[in-house]
C-alpha cells in the first residue's frame, strides 16, 4: 500500500501550464518597472526634503553662510564627489568599517552564543554587554592607544567595541525568543553543542540577528567616525577627518556634502540588510501585508 501512495501528486506538474495561464495578471513585472516603483518614493522624499530646505533658506531665516541652501551645497557636493582624493578617503573608511564590522561579527556572535546559552555567563556578562554599549568611543581611546599605539588596529579596536555588543545582543534576543517548541523538536532530534547552533539556534535567531547586525553597523560607523580622529597616520584622509575638518573650517557646504555621502552609504548598506531581511521573511513565510 505504501507503494500505491507514491503515485498521486504528479498531477501538480501538469498544472504548471495551467497556472501560467491563470497568472497572466500576475505579480512579476519588468525589472525597470520594479526598480522604479522602489525608487520613486525615495526620490520623492528627497525632492520634498530639498524643496523644504530651499524654502527655509529663501525665507531668509538665517544668513546663507550659516545655513547654506541646496543651490550652494549641491555644486560643492559635486566638487567633493568628483575629487579623486575624496574617493580614496571613502575607500579607506569603508575598508576600516568592513574589517571592523567583520571582526565585530565574529566576536559578537561568539559572545552572544556563550552568553545566551549559559545561565551563569548570562548573569555574569549579560548586562555588561549593554553597559559596554553605552560607553562612548572617547572612553576607549586611551586604552586603544595604549594597546595598539598609533596603528590601524587602534581604530579597529574602537570600532569593534562599538559594534560587537549590538551583534551579541541581537543574537541573545533571537535565542531568547526562539519558539520553545522548536527547541524541544531540536532536543528530540538530538541536536547538541555546535550542531544545535548550526541547525537550530542560529537560523531561528536570524531575524533578530540581522536586526542586531544593522544596529551594530550603525554603532561601528559612528565609532569609526570618532575613531578616525584618534590619530591620522601619515597624511591620509578619511570620511571622519573630512567631516571633522569641514566643521573645523566652518565649511558648512562641505560638511553637508560629507553628511550626504554618509547618508547615502548608510542607505545603501541598509538596502543590503533589507535584502537579507526580505529573503528571510520570504523563506519563512512571514510576509507583512502592507498595502
Amino acid at each position, binding site marked *: 500500500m505504501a507503494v500505491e501512495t507514491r503515485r498521486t501528486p504528479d498531477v501538480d506538474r501538469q498544472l504548471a501550464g495551467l497556472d501560467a495561464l491563470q497568472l497572466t495578471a500576475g505579480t512579476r513585472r519588468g525589472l525597470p518597472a520594479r526598480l522604479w516603483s522602489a525608487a520613486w518614493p525615495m526620490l520623492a522624499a528627497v525632492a520634498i526634503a530639498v524643496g523644504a530646505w530651499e524654502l527655509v533658506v529663501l525665507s531668509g531665516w538665517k544668513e546663507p553662510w550659516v545655513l547654506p541652501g541646496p543651490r550652494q551645497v549641491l555644486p560643492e557636493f559635486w566638487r567633493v564627489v568628483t575629487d579623486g582624493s575624496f574617493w580614496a578617503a571613502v575607500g579607506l573608511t569603508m575598508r576600516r568599517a568592513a574589517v571592523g564590522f567583520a571582526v565585530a561579527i565574529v566576536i559578537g556572535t561568539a559572545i552572544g552564543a556563550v552568553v545566551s546559552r549559559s545561565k551563569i555567563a548570562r548573569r555574569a556578562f549579560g548586562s555588561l554587554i549593554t553597559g559596554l554599549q553605552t560607553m562612548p568611543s572617547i572612553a576607549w581611546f586611551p586604552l586603544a592607544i595604549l594597546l595598539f599605539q598609533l596603528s590601524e588596529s587602534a581604530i579597529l579596536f574602537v570600532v569593534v567595541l562599538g559594534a560587537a555588543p549590538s551583534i551579541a545582543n541581537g543574537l541573545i534576543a533571537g535565542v531568547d525568543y526562539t519558539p520553545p517548541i522548536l527547541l524541544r523538536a531540536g532536543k528530540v532530534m538530538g541536536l547538541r553543542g555546535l550542531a544545535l547552533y548550526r541547525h537550530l539556534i542560529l537560523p531561528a535567531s536570524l531575524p533578530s540577528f540581522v536586526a542586531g547586525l544593522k544596529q551594530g553597523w550603525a554603532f561601528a560607523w559612528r565609532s569609526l567616525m570618532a575613531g578616525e580622529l584618534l590619530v*591620522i597616520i601619515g597624511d591620509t584622509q578619511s570620511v571622519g577627518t573630512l567631516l571633522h575638518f569641514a566643521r573645523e573650517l566652518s565649511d558648512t557646504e562641505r560638511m553637508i556634502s560629507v553628511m550626504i555621502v554618509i547618508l547615502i552609504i548608510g542607505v545603501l548598506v541598509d538596502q543590503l540588510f533589507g535584502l537579507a531581511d526580505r529573503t528571510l521573511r520570504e523563506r519563512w513565510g512571514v510576509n507583512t501585508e502592507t498595502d
Partner: protein
Amino acid sequence: GGDSEEGGSGQLKLGFFPNITHATALVGVDRGIFAKHLGTAPQTATFNAGPSAVEALFAKGVDATFIGPNPAINAWAKSKGQGIRIISGAASGGAALVVKPEIKSVQDLKGKKIATPQLGNTQDVAARSYLKSQGLTANKDGSGDVKIVPQENSQTIETFEQGTIDGAWVPEPFASRLILEAGGKKLVDEKDLWPGGKFVVTHLIVRADFAEENPETVRKLIAATVEVTDFINANPEEAKKSVNNQLTRLSGKPISGEVLDAAFQNITFTTDPVASSLLTGAKNAEAVGLLEPVDLNGIYDLTLLNEVLKAAGKEQVQAK
C-alpha cells in the same frame, strides 16, 4: 608593543597638530628639515587634541610631540614629573578677545556671553584674570557680570556667527577667523597682557626616558626645530605655502590666505618656550581655583636647546 625603543636609534616618531600654531612642525616636515637633521624623515602622527597626543606619548606611540601648554602641564602633573620634558619652544602669542562690533569697551561686556576654549585652559584663565583686573566678575559656574561659556573652538565660530555668544577669547587662527569670516572685532590682544608680549602657545615635549636614552636624536631634533624657526622668520611667505601645503593634504582644503596672513601676523615663532608665561599662567589658574597646585620645577630641560643655540651663536633661553 614595547619594542618602540628601536625607533630611538632609527626613526624618530614625531607628533603634531594640523594647526597654524604648529607651523614649525608643518614647515619642518614639508621642507624636509627634520629629515635632513635626523638622517631619516621622522615618522609623523597627527593629532586633533592634546589628550591623544599625551596618550600616544605615554604609550610610546610617539617619542616627541609639539603640543600646547595645558596638556603638557597635565602630563607632567599626572606622571609626577617622570613622564615628559619640555625641550624647546615653538610659537608664542596669537590669542585675543574678539567681540561683536557693537561692543566698544570692556565695560560693555557686562551681561554678555563670551566663549573660551575650555574651562581652565590658558585662554580661559587669561580671560577670567583680565576681566577681574577690569573689575568684572566671571565666576566658574558661569554666573557673574560676564558669562563665560567654555566650548570647542570650531563651535565658537558657529555660535558667534549666529549671535548666540557676544565674544570669544580664542587662539589663532580662530581669533583671525572670527574677525575675517564672522565680522568680529578685536577688543583685547592677549599679547598686551604679558611682559614682552610673549606667552607660550606651542612647545615641543619629549618622553623623559626617550630623552635619556637618545640624547643625540633629541639634540638633532632640537637643531632642526631651531633651523625651521629661523626659516619661518626669514621666509614667511614660503613658510605659509608650506603650512597650507600640509594642511591641504590632511584636511582636503587649504586655509584662506587672508586668515593665514592674519594669524602669522599675530603669532611669533620662536624656540624660546617663554617659561615664565607657563609658570605665571599656572599660578593664575591656581589662584582662580582652576588648577590643583602642581610643582612645575623641572618640567623644562633646556640644556640641549641652549647648547644648540650657543653653537649657533644665539641668545640662550631661561627655564624660569
